[in-house]
């Protein structure tokens, strides 16, 4: 199974982009060959999708990467250090890197994980989403689904490729 996971916070403006992407995928009926999961801030629940049979987890979140607002990038958890200030494990606010570290400590079968970071225009305590990001949701969905489905190919399938 492949999972496309949205994380974020509806109450923090562009930090909700991961959740809105999952909404869009569900509304448009695009959930085929993978499961779209709304994790909100409850990152600890990511552990529930880490199974031997899990082929790939793509996590969509807002990420301050120094790019122009609305731009996105795919990266591996090990490629980045978190920007969020955390004290220990905050299960709600959810530092995904901490969750992955926790999963490894508890011997979970950690599958290939990719993060799709979307540069926010603004993060503030308000419901909503900037027009910059809202206008690109279909594009984000297309890119996320393609990456979720085809970027990680199981070895046995890879061997069958021409």
């Amino acid at each position, binding site marked *: 199974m492949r999972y496309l996971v949205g994380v974020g916070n509806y109450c*923090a403006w562009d930090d909700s982009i991961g*959740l809105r992407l999952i909404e869009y995928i569900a509304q448009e009926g695009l959930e085929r060959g993978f499961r779209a999961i709304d994790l909100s801030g409850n990152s600890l*629940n990511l552990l529930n999708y880490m199974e031997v049979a899990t082929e790939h987890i793509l996590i969509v979140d807002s990420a301050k990467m120094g790019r122009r607002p609305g731009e996105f990038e795919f990266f591996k958890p090990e490629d980045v250090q978190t920007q969020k200030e955390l004290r220990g494990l905050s*299960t709600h606010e959810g530092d995904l890197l901490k969750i992955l570290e926790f999963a490894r400590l508890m011997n979970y079968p950690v599958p290939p994980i990719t993060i799709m970071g979307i540069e926010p225009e603004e993060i503030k305590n308000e419901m909503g989403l900037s027009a910059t990001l809202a206008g690109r949701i279909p594009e984000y969905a297309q890119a996320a689904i393609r990456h979720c489905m085809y970027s990680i190919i199981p070895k046995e399938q890879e061997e069958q490729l021409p």
Partner: protein
Amino acid sequence: MGGDYAPAEIVAGAVLAARSLKVSKLFLVGDESVIRRELLKHAENFDSHVLHVYFLAAPDLLGAPSVFPLVATHGPVVARALRLKRLSHEWGSLIGGRTTHPTKAVPGGFASLPTVKELQELREKMLAAVPDLVETLKTVQALAPAIPAFSRPTEYIALHSHDGYALYDGDIQSVLPDGNKKLYKVADYRKCTNEYMTAASTAKFTKNRMESYAAGALARFNNNHEQLLPEAKQAAASLGLQGICTNPYMNTVAQVVEIVQSFHESLAIVDEFIKKGIKDEPLSKPTKFGKGAGATEVPRGILFHEYEYDKDGMCLSGNCIIPTNQNHANIQKDFEALVPQLLKEDADEKKMELRLEMLVRAYDPCISCSTHFLDVKFIR
């Protein structure tokens, strides 16, 4: 609503939004849908309480900064916590579609139903978790001496029902420290919440018969402990929890009692569905339009929703009063009583900070708040 602030409340919110409309007679919902929603609410309560007890309260009581160091020192306990979390995830997903922002509980009923076979599988998983529940009680018994001794006369507000320990439905009930109880109709929820603002906060505060009140597991226990199932009553007795308890730190213990309650009540519901079979009920459609209020219990306490819809199905107004907000004033009053007590005990700054943070966490507010709530500055 929700996001980082309230994944658990979103389950209740979905349930309550659907039910608020029923209260206003916009939708007719069959009894089986109500029972399924109760099952979903128990899963939510179980999941949220396990998270709070094991991942926030236990590290405090063991003197650890987070659950991380406990992997090395209490590995089997952490593994048990994750097994219980997994169970509640599968339980909630089966009934609600997913645990966060459930998709199956919709106005008018359920979008899809589990099969008897799936319920039988859930039952097997629940029975397999019984040893973990027994060990949970033992762990909390062992940690109980570390729960701070602090008591302040408090009013407690929760749902109350004649049908059993209220979680999904009922009237609003307030109980005072002397046991005096008062009932309110849900439609009159504004009369017992009495929201107000203070200059010191952007959040609204609430009060009723005393200068503040508490909502949550301890409030439910204090109002309704006589209606607990025998297994939950036994758990409460084994943990030294008796009504009316006015120690806010004991909210965590009340949550453990509710873990047992939700487990056994759900097992009975699942058994009943397996016996009777699953009856597919078509979604009820709106019959008229208007305004209605609903109240339900969520892990952190009583939650009020009120909506008004016009004849075109457009929402004209809405009002939500969430439990974390209802607890704000009570936490403040607890602080005002606890700080002098700590000064009298000559507690050092580290101990004071920890005890105050533990107090906030005991109310189980949204986890972002409970983790980063305090920035203590000592002025001498």
